[in-house]
């Protein structure tokens, strides 16, 4: 049924038709017609954040937890530019976020009007696609296309900039009309005119799978490495089937954590800069690596010249541009992680890797004791696991705590670990956890941050209170920007330049927001406090006062080889 609507109404209607039920945003001058229309669409729940960056992170958290598009809204100018960090975060981690920004009226564009900024120009390199809507007749098609582009192929953020007068313009609207133009899958399209110029990429999935199966049968020291693509593609069962049929041990990258159950006999852990010695050693001794849905990021490989020197690489990825980008591959298979892994698992010959597993077991080194006293990440995370019975989603921030959680928390449930990997965005955890809660209202979500990252977006406690979002917040407080301090200790002669960081009294802060807060200094207090916070009906905050100068071990120095981990602090000139 066709009717006449304003652009603002069309925005609301197209979002609702696509199944969007929650949006994160902040009103302002150029987006006011949209906010006016929102009042007539109560099915579209709006979460009023305290800073637009939080809206983008929350939409990202919602998208990662639900697998559906997360939507954020901001006004023109500063509202729009505040989204930028969140969009770049979503872009690096392939998260389907759609941002809608108000823009000054068309007649004012280009005149440096009040709160005018070229947000489309600014976000070009950090979005999959973006649009400046020039006429209301384009709007419905643009929104539908944007929602499709964000999700299809390798997901990513899309921005729609809508001038204020377009929001007020009227046009006829037909519900459910098709997107503007049929879309091909931009990631997996074949490339014409480059016959021999794509080393390693198989002509078809079938060829690639057959060749990969042959390499798996012949390998003595094979590894499976899985990344975010396995989570995005919901390929858990397929990866597990492949591993169990072949006995090949499984490594999960930072964003691949929870794609394979911790505690499974074939689970090895996280590789790379802070990977356990046995994991990195396994990589350096492997003769075959089957990489699924990862991009062999520099934090995973260290110096690529020395990465896995004995291994041939089978790389399965949806994005053809990733194959061969960072490491040379023997077999590249362009396709969906679930489909390709399923096909590979079907054709591989059953085998075991007993000798190789024993060899890897011998690579194990006792973990260096980084902590004095008993309030160590191990004990904190063990309490958390106990209180939640392992059934919660953990959203981490960036830094030392992120690595401790990645290495020490035994993730069992798929997609129960969410973090900012590629961009490494401090301040991500608290707002992203709000989005995770809305995607999974029946589940507990814990946002774990350091004292630095927490202070970047702690204003969002107010959002949690106002919008009734029962996020549990944990702060690992060591009084430093810990990871930077660790680098200063290792690589800058222990000059702790600008890394000591003061914190407010977090218990009083919680009280000011009207939520319960606890400070934990002794391990003995852990079980009781963590259980109370976990069981509380609303948002709650727990500060863990941890040792100030503990380090994350082992560590591969940036640009170093996986074969040469740092396992103790270097003696500095001052010592």
């Amino acid at each position, binding site marked *: 049924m066709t009717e006449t609507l304003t652009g603002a109404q069309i925005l609301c209607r197209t979002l609702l038709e696509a199944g969007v039920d929650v949006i994160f945003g902040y009103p302002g001058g150029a987006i006011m017609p949209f906010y006016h229309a929102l009042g007539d669409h109560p099915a579209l729940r709006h979460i009023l954040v305290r800073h637009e960056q939080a809206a983008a992170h929350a939409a990202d958290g919602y998208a990662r937890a639900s697998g559906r598009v997360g939507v954020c809204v901001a006004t023109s100018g500063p509202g729009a530019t505040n989204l930028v960090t969140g969009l770049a975060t979503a872009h690096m981690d392939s998260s389907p976020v759609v941002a809608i920004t108000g823009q000054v009226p068309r007649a004012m564009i280009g005149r440096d009007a009040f709160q005018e900024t070229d947000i489309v120009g600014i976000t070009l390199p950090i979005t999959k696609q973006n649009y400046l809507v020039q006429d209301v007749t384009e709007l419905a098609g643009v929104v539908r296309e944007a929602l499709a582009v964000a999700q299809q192929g390798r997901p990513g953020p899309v921005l729609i900039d809508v001038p204020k007068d377009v929001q007020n313009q009227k046009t006829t609207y037909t519900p459910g009309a098709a997107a503007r133009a049929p879309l091909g899958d931009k990631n997996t399209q074949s490339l014409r005119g480059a016959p021999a110029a794509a080393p390693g990429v198989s002509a078809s999935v079938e060829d690639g799978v057959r060749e990969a199966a042959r390499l798996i049968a012949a390998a003595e020291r094979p590894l499976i490495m899985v990344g975010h693509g396995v989570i995005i593609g919901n390929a858990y069962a397929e990866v597990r089937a492949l591993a169990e049929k072949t006995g090949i041990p499984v490594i999960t990258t930072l964003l691949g954590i929870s794609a394979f159950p911790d505690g499974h006999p074939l689970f090895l852990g996280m590789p790379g800069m802070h990977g356990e010695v046995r994991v990195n050693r396994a990589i350096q001794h492997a003769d075959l690596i089957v990489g699924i849905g990862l991009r062999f990021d520099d934090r995973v490989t260290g110096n690529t010249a020395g990465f896995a020197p004995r291994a041939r690489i089978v790389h399965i990825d949806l994005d053809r*541009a990733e194959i061969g980008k960072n490491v040379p591959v023997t077999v590249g298979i362009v396709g969906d992680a679930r489909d390709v892994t399923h096909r590979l698992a079907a054709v591989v010959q059953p085998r075991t890797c007993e000798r190789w597993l024993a060899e890897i077991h011998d690579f194990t080194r006792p973990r260096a004791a980084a902590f004095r006293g008993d309030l160590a990440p191990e004990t904190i995370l063990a309490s958390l696991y106990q209180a939640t019975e392992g059934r919660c989603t953990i959203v981490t921030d960036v830094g030392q705590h992120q690595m401790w959680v990645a290495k020490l928390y035994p993730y069992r449930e798929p997609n129960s670990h969410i973090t900012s990997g590629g961009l490494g965005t401090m301040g991500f955890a608290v707002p992203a956890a709000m989005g995770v809660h809305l995607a999974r209202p029946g589940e507990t979500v814990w946002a774990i941050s350091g004292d630095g990252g927490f202070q970047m977006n702690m204003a969002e406690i107010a959002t949690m209170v106002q919008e009734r979002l029962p996020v549990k917040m944990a702060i690992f407080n060591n009084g430093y920007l810990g990871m930077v301090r660790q680098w200063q200790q290792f690589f800058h002669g222990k000059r702790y330049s600008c890394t000591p960081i003061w914190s407010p009294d977090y218990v009083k802060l919680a009280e000011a927001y009207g939520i319960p807060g606890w400070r934990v200094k002794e391990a003995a207090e852990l079980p009781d406090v963590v259980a109370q916070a976990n069981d509380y009906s609303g948002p709650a905050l727990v500060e863990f006062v941890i040792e100030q100068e503990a380090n994350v071990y082992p560590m591969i120095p940036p640009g170093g080889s996986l074969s040469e981990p740092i396992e103790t602090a270097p003696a500095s000139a001052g010592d």
Partner: protein
Amino acid sequence: MPDSHTVAVLLDDALLTLNRAVGVLRRRNVPIERVALRPTATAGVSQLTFILKADAATADRVAQQFHKIVGVRDVVLAATEESTREVQS
């Protein structure tokens, strides 16, 4: 192995698409020698051509990045023939 490739990107005649395509060259720090934009015989389609100082594998990786852009219709890659190269002054 030629160390120079001519890349022709056929793309929608829209400023944003062009901006995005040129942005890839800049953002990925692609070593290019020359760049040109011209209309094509097909209405609504432009051709962005550049000479890339890189081997075939690198040229392929660059071409792949263009292929991901919404609005890019085709990417054609060819080893640059010596005769078509001009002396740089």
